[in-house]
């Protein structure tokens, strides 16, 4: 971390003040604060979760990025690291967990399974990527992504946070933020958005 990383260019700060004073924008300091304390939810789905644990452990140690505070409760986390295969049986729970996370919240799809279905995609109980359920910010390919690849993805997330502005982020817009509709376990997984189409198809059959 550079001392004057926060500074906006174009402002002269006397040398003896450099270590204590920064001139910056609100956006920058807000982003800096958030990007340095992204708390992931302690939430593992499959094989990738083991690599996530390895990343949290002492060898790769993502507490160097201020991410060590892993909370099992969605209420206390900023980041949902979807580490593994999203199954249909688990899908309603995942959406519910996402809805319970307070804003600002981010989702990282770790591994092939979470990004797009993965090797088990053709299976009858597998959702083709968690972005079918909730919005995803960063995708990390790999099966499993090695701990270094995961950290690389988390750095990408920090870069994404750096580009956001208080004025445009969705959680400071007027009006309520709509919750993501929770799919239902029926004869197969029922996505609420599909209900009219299913009824239509049912009539024809």
């Amino acid at each position: 971390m550079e001392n004057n990383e926060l500074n906006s260019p174009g402002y002269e700060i006397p040398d003896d003040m450099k270590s204590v004073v920064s001139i910056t924008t609100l956006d920058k300091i807000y982003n800096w604060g958030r990007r340095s304390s992204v708390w992931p939810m302690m939430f593992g789905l499959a094989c990738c979760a083991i690599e996530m644990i390895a990343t949290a452990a002492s060898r790769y140690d993502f507490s160097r990025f201020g991410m060590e505070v892993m909370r099992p409760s969605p209420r206390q986390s900023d980041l949902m690291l979807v580490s593994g295969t999203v199954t249909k049986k688990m899908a309603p729970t995942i959406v519910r967990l996402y809805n319970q996370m307070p804003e600002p919240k981010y989702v990282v799809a770790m591994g092939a399974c979470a990004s797009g279905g993965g090797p088990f995609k053709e299976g009858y109980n597998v959702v083709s990527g968690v972005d079918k359920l909730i919005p995803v910010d960063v995708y990390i390919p790999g099966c499993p992504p090695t701990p270094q690849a995961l950290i690389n993805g988390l750095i990408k997330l920090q870069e994404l946070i750096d580009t956001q502005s208080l004025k445009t982020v969705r959680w400071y817009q007027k009006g309520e933020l709509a919750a993501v509709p929770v799919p239902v376990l029926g004869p197969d997984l029922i996505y609420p958005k599909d209900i009219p189409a299913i009824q239509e198809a049912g009539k024809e059959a």
Partner: protein
Amino acid sequence: MSDLDFTTRFPTGVVADERKGYEGYIVDADKLVEFATALRDEFGFDYLSSVTGVDYINEGKLEVVYHAYKTTGGAGLVFKTQVDREAAEVPSLYNIYPGADFQEREAWDLMGIKFTGHPDLRRILLWEGFEGHPLRKDWKEPYFEEDVKPFKSRWPEGDFHRAEDKNPYGANVQYPDKFDPEKWQPEGEDALYGSLAKYQTTDESGLVTDHITVNLGPQHPSTHGVFRIAAKLNGETIVNLKPVMGYLHRNHEKIGERNTYLQNMPFTDRLDYLSSMSNNFGYALAVEKLLKVEVPERAEYLRVIMAELTRIQNHLFAIGMFLNDLGAFFTPSLYAIEERELILDIFEMVSGSRMMCNYFRFGGVVRDLPEGALEKIKGLVLDRLPRKVDEMDRFLSENEILRSRTVGQGYLSAEDAIKYSAAGPMLRASGIPYDIRRADPYSIYDRFDFDVAVRYNGDIYDRYYIRLDEVRQSLRILEQAIKDIPEGEILSGKPQYTVRVPAGESYGRVEGPKGELGFYIVSDGKANPYRYHVRAPSFINLTAFGPMCVGLKVADVVAVLGSIDIVLGETDR
């Protein structure tokens, strides 16, 4: 197996299986219970290892396949029952071998075989209300493309597309004809909660107490993944408990039946994803039995070395996570994971991946040790690991918090362990010295000098400590293996990507870190297995979980679960 003679005991109803490549006996469904009772009480096959089904659609039959063993050692016995596909009803063996509980539920869930007399026949991996029984050969999933791989759409006119773009709903779903979501009533969890029995107790003073239901998971820090426990509590004491799984059911078997034999190898990595090398081992053994290929000497040694390293890193991880469950939050596991990392470095060097090794091939292994790998293994096995294991032992095993949480808790008696088909460290911690490496040796395990770790108290502490014992025994095996490893070939024959496997059935089993890992394969002579079933130790060990927890407090349930050491990839497959 030839010394067994059932004809005098069962003049009718039991015949030897004469199909080419098959073995064992076919038992009439109405004789099944009688046969199993005799098997257990008269012939000494006290351990029912695996129950599964095969759908012979061309003959219109469903076959239930049972594998039974003697816990005193020796080869196993296979027996089967055939029923009509349309009216698939088989008497349940639950009362004779309670270890059949979850496996029968799985066969009902995935194949639609009804086990009459089973006390709680619900779906286990999928949810109540799911349409169809997916492992039946005529059941097709939403992304179904072809019966077998490789798919024709990939080459030579491979036009890239995503499967979801072809599905009318843009997702991996399909609904039955005339299905109307508005009229449909969710089944919910009534069956589960109903099976937990809602009742009240009245204490001496006449106070009526309602039992309450508590759910742990599927998102809970103590469940090692997406696993759920539904418990009935009287105050703080557990009166009934049912594990709920399937949250990671990835349809391994259905996909496996479409894959070619080789293509299944990397998929087995993802079963018990902590110990991919052992999974490879079991699968390779099962297919090699059918292929009848020899494995070169050096490859056998490499296999053993990798399998034992896998056992060590699995147990280290299990111990670390188990202490997590006890509340020693993360510190012991950080130390354990450190040693594991060093072993993973070796795997990465040898196989290319830290976790998903895909290292075994039919008739050998994929590549030889690269330069420097053997030195690394030697350094770890001879120097570092013994030191570190002793250190863990010194600091953890005598710790009074650990002892007071674990000694005498979560008791599983030897009889119960056998009854519930518990395997691996769980069985051995209850005093049954049953280790497949010794009881029914495979590969070259008969050459090594090692002891079968066994402990007699059957409590959580023993299940923790036996893992340290086993690590020490594995180190002993490794020492001998790295000393004796010869030079030479590592694969018999040329590397091939299609193998023709003769028709027949085979069951390959290894002593995985979690217990007996078995692969049941039925081949019809084609390039892909007709039936591919995994006997998953994590799954079957959970059968004893409920009974073990009755009478304990909720916090101890977590410790019991940690001491069983499950991996969800294998539990749910």
